[in-house]
């Protein structure tokens, strides 16, 4: 059950943004930035769309936490097709919403696609927690217009370069 053809390890990189340089970069991020690492690459979603880079290669440096999500049989080719479709539709750059549709949303979806597992719930619950405070409500219009895109990645596009 473990290894059919060949499986690929899938990891979740969690960047705790409340410390260090990351804080200067995205003080509003309020929490965690996450990305999926598979096939030796790191994939994440930001204001620029779906991007990828060598693992730990974004401005944020190495992750604070690495969670093993399991293995996937999905080949890279299929995954790339999948990502391209995602990037065209629900995960294009302009659809980024700091609270409801952010990097963690993406990571969660991809994790489920690849492994059937979700990412730890404390990450996905964070936005709704913040939104439920009056403070969060007030800041919402500003925050909605903020797109976080940790530099250091390349945008994935299918046919043409739409970043």
């Amino acid at each position, binding site marked *: 059950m473990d290894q*059919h053809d060949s*499986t690929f390890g899938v990891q979740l990189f969690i960047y705790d943004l409340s410390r260090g*340089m990351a*804080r*200067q*970069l*995205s*003080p509003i991020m309020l929490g965690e930035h996450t990305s999926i690492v598979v*096939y*030796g*690459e790191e994939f994440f979603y930001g*204001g*620029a769309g779906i*991007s*990828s*880079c*060598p693992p730990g*290669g*974004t*401005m*944020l*440096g190495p992750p604070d936490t690495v969670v093993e999500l399991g293995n*996937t*049989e*999905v*080949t*890279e*080719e*299929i995954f*790339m*097709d*999948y990502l391209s*479709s995602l990037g*065209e*539709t*629900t995960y294009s750059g302009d659809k980024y919403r700091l609270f409801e549709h952010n990097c963690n949303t993406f990571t969660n979806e991809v994790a489920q*696609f*690849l*492994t*059937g597992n979700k990412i730890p719930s404390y990450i996905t619950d964070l936005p709704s927690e913040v939104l439920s405070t009056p403070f969060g409500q007030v*800041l919402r*219009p*500003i*925050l*909605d*217009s*903020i*797109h*976080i*895109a940790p*530099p*250091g*990645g*390349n*945008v*994935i596009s299918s*046919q*043409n*370069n739409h*970043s």
Partner: protein
Amino acid sequence: MAENSGTDPAVETNTEENAAASATIIKVTVKTPKDKEEIAIAEDSSVAQFKEEISKRFKANQDQLVLIFAGKILKDGDTLGQHGIKDGLTVHLVIKTAQKTSGGGSSQTSASSGPGPSQGNTDGSANSSPAGNLGTPQGSAPSLTPTQPPNMLAGFGDLSGLANLGMGSANFMELQQQMQRQLMSNPEMLSQIMENPLVQSMMSNPDLMRQMIVANPQMQQLMERNPEISHMLNNPELMRQTMELARNPAMMQEMMRNQDRALSNLESIPGGYNALRRMYTDIQEPMFSAAREQFGNNPFSALGGNTDNSGAQPSRIENREPLPNPWGPPDTAAATTTSGTATTTSSTTSSTTPSVSNPLGISSSSLGNGMFNSPGMQSLMQQISENPQLMQNMLSAPYMRTMMQSLAQNPDIASQVARPSFPKQQLMQQMLQMFAGGNASTPTPEVRFQQQLEQLSAMGFINREANLQALIATGSFGDEIWKSYSAISSRLPL
């Protein structure tokens, strides 16, 4: 239980499956990146059958379908039960675009992450080469060395990496704006950034600063309207001084106070007050209407816009120089005034003005034309005006108070503030209340006119009380205007 009669509306036509299924029909959600569909199928169907169903629903060739469940690729020969696919579960579907290689090729040329046309190994190298262009930023995140000199954000925590990222210059501006927004929302971050020695060193490079400022489209607009700004930008001496000031918030405040003092001094000249007044009305009319048309009905933006218009001030200040000013300090003050207002201007235009003390007023106006016009900011403004409490809370932050005072002291802004034609009356009144309610921090007349009093007594007018009276009578602009504003506004139907 077994609805395999074929007449069940929930089940799609497939009689085959119904015949084969003595088990229950389950509803499986099939999810593609683009959409998802619920497909009813017999529990013990094979994957092939499932795919057949899917190909009908999604109008794709069965060969193109790749089904994934729990990280496993479902092969045609498997059954759904084998993989544990039950009612209500979600299966992922990827529809392979038949032209794999061309897709890979084109994406490679389009500087994306290279979804390996030759799956796997080359990706690593393909990625590292475009990423390699970034040089330092990628590898050593904390390193703040601007490896790319033409890159303007080099000092700002290495966001320079982004500019080179095949994202194009359009995104660079976006990022800049994004950064501004972040900066605006967090003054601490701004002061952090300002303290960064790299930023400081960058700011000492007038060329770089100028480049940066000029590159901003809003600045360019501004410059068209107010040629003085470009004048000022082209004057390296001025730039340097400005940047000095921008680097040092305390200094900037000092400047502003000097300026105000200079102005008050001028008021003390017989007839000087009137001259000043004339000047203000002459010059501010066009400035104000220009500001208004730029910023729309947003009182805050008008506030900020004023400091923008002070960009036109260099011409005004220079005009004032010939005005005789017998009192000593104003000579230097005039000089500092020039740079002071210019400071105000350039510091308004510099997005990195330390705004610990001026988060909204000064720095935002500059590139913050864009900021205030951003829908987020505007809706925030709306919220604020609708909810006075929020405004109070905002304003009660310590730095806000300082800012308000600096603004108040600057007669320009005070007069702008007082314009009765402000649309958001309520908001303005509240702000004025804040000014008034600045209790101990608002200087009493004696304190305010301290310097003038000293000068007067130095000149020989030893009757302090009379001096005070005289000074109060002419008053500072702010007072006068505020009074007339409340008078007028109380009469206005708004």
